[in-house]
């Protein structure tokens, strides 16, 4: 993978997480502390190193809040900032990085590989004293994090855009994500089909399929939401709105897989979304894999031409699902 696509994927992942964190305090500017929180959530070496040094999302959030209220106190403002609420990023808009946060990304791209570890290294040497202050509150230091970063096996590379495998008749894509919750809690969310709208952005409502008896049913009917969370109407063709979801695999606490088909389309493609769960320090690591069946004939040649776009869209879909699962626990 080129360093450009690595940097772009890293930027996309960290931007979403950081801006979601900024949205909790009613801010529209993602600054260095939000970048720090996003890195504490990273599924890459940067996040593993931070969590190994004791920097979990919960502790980091506390440190950020304490830092701001103490700073306001230091200039005589005893009014504490409003208590952070839930993430409203997906319901709002107008988010931006602050110039100094963008500089960190730029330096990480210029001097490093542009992955999350490079971003963390640049953030650690941020000259304003903000990160130094936060690390001190978290009983650690830039030196500790740097050494944790070197010890963490750097085998975890960016898993985007999705790799396509050579398996004939299907196209696969996969991505990894970190969720700050224990594996049994994550399983409870993922294994309950009625909770699918909480994490899958393309599912607005779920009901038993007509052939299901409600007891041990494995087939469900999902309907795509008619409006996006920010109030804009969702532009999805009517025949794509109703989806049949069939539970194909369920290994408690380890793996779950759903096959999606489109009952309103005669020769429609189907896809299988598999989610593998594994406990990790400070939370759960998820591997999301999607495989699409492929049609033959002239369309196949056509799809070969569109392959890079398909791969990108596949990665984007998985990224949004992963982000949805993560958001459910923040």
């Amino acid at each position: 993978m080129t360093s450009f696509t690595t940097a772009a994927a890293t930027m996309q992942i960290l931007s979403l997480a950081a801006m979601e964190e900024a949205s909790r305090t009613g801010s529209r500017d993602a600054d260095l502390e939000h970048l720090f929180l996003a890195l504490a959530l990273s599924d890459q070496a940067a996040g593993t190193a931070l969590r190994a040094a004791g920097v979990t999302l919960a502790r980091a959030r506390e440190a950020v809040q304490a830092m701001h209220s103490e700073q306001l106190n230091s200039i005589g403002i005893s009014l504490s900032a409003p208590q952070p609420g839930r993430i409203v990023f997906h319901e709002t808009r107008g988010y931006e990085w602050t110039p100094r946060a963008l500089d960190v990304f730029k330096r990480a791209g210029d001097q490093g590989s542009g992955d999350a570890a490079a971003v963390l290294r640049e953030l650690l040497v941020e000259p304003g004293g903000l990160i130094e202050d936060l690390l001190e509150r978290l009983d650690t230091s830039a030196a500790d994090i740097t050494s944790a970063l070197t010890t963490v096996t750097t085998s975890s590379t960016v898993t985007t855009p999705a790799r396509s495998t050579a398996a004939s008749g299907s196209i696969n894509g996969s991505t990894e994500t970190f969720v700050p919750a224990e594996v049994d809690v994550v399983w409870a969310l993922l294994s309950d089909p009625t909770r699918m709208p909480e994490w899958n952005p393309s599912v607005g409502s779920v009901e038993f399929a007509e052939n299901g008896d409600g007891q041990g049913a494995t087939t469900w009917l999902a309907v795509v939401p008619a409006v996006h969370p920010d109030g804009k109407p969702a532009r999805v063709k009517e025949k794509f709105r109703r989806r049949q979801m069939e539970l194909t695999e369920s290994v408690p606490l380890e793996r779950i897989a759903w096959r999606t088909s489109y009952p309103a389309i005669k020769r429609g493609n189907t896809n299988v979304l598999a989610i593998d769960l594994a406990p990790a320090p400070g939370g759960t690591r998820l591997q999301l894999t999607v495989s699409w069946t492929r049609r033959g004939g002239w369309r196949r040649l056509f799809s070969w031409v569109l392959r890079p776009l398909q791969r990108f869209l596949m990665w984007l879909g998985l990224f949004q699902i992963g982000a949805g699962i993560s958001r459910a626990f923040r």
Partner: protein
Amino acid sequence: MEPNALAASAANTDDPRVGLRAIVSLRALADALELTQVEAALRAGMSWLEIADALGVTRQAVHKKYAKRVDPTIPIPRRTQ
């Protein structure tokens, strides 16, 4: 805190490094509060011009900063009436 004590403390310049970083926290708080107030004003039916006058800035300035940031579900008139 009494107004005098507040003024004394806010003007405390013993450690400018601490003081400067505190200003960043203060700006972030002010921005968040300003957005909440602008959204409340729009919900109450105030125009961009009325909001700008109350904030003491130009209509263009307030529109540039907040048009994309405010809650997208608030119905906003296209132009000031």
